[in-house]
């Protein structure tokens, strides 16, 4: 399974997760919706859509959790007929990321949860020292997004 990353420190943890958990798709993104790494996608437009939707779901679920429970919901799992999604935050020294994974009968929710925990531990261990958070201005967003997609799909 091909893994493409914007920042190299993410590659090994993601590669291990995909191999261990046997998932079809995996995506790591900033909370703003900017992609950081992906596995299993073949078209940049799919990555762009998945990032936008994952960031929106994370934001909505977080706000709903705050309203209902006083704190954001942590993990979201949605089971379809053939495929299932697992959406969870990944907190590292570099900041908070969103992790999206799609799996089918080759894997299971239990396995994905198990290896997600290990994935986050590896991310934390691999993360370089924290930098000041980049400011993604609305006018820069599309340029940043295209730059990351180009890096992932070899058009940089």
């Amino acid at each position: 399974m091909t893994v493409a990353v914007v920042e190299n420190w993410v590659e090994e943890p993601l590669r291990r997760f995909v191999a261990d958990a046997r998932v079809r798709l995996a995506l790591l993104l900033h909370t703003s919706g900017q992609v950081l790494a992906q596995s299993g996608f073949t078209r940049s437009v799919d990555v762009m859509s998945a990032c936008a939707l994952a960031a929106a779901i994370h934001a909505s679920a977080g706000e709903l959790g705050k309203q209902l429970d006083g704190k954001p919901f942590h993990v979201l799992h949605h089971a379809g007929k053939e495929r299932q999604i697992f959406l969870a935050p990944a907190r590292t020294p570099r900041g908070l990321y969103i992790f999206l994974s799609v799996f089918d009968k080759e894997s299971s929710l239990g396995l994905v949860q198990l290896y997600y925990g290990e994935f986050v531990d590896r991310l934390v261990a691999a993360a370089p020292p924290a930098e000041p958070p980049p400011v993604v201005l609305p006018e820069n967003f599309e340029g940043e997004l295209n730059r990351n997609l180009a890096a992932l799909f070899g058009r940089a």
Partner: protein
Amino acid sequence: MSDSPFAEVLAALTRQRGVLGSMVVSEADGIIVDSNLQIGVRGSVVAALAASLYRKARLSAQAAGLGTSSFVQLEAEQGRVCAVGRGDLLLVTVAEARANVGLIRVEMLRATQVLDA
């Protein structure tokens, strides 16, 4: 202690000599439905991996034309993991190496009637 329909059978299994814990697990999800575990047994980890192992063993048996698998036993250096399934549920037992696996097997096969109910 849980008062689920599985509590009694899980307690009886875990009382067996050398048994460290037993769980009812969803085969498709690898998630614990109910459990009776001694302290130190990583239930969710065992459940996820045992369900995956059982599912693959079941598919292997079917692919080989042997029908459905009835009882799966993983023998390791310091103990055993046993699993038996009915429908979408699995009964998983973690035991020390000194445990009487024959007795555990009989108890587990008997206990699967509860999974049917």
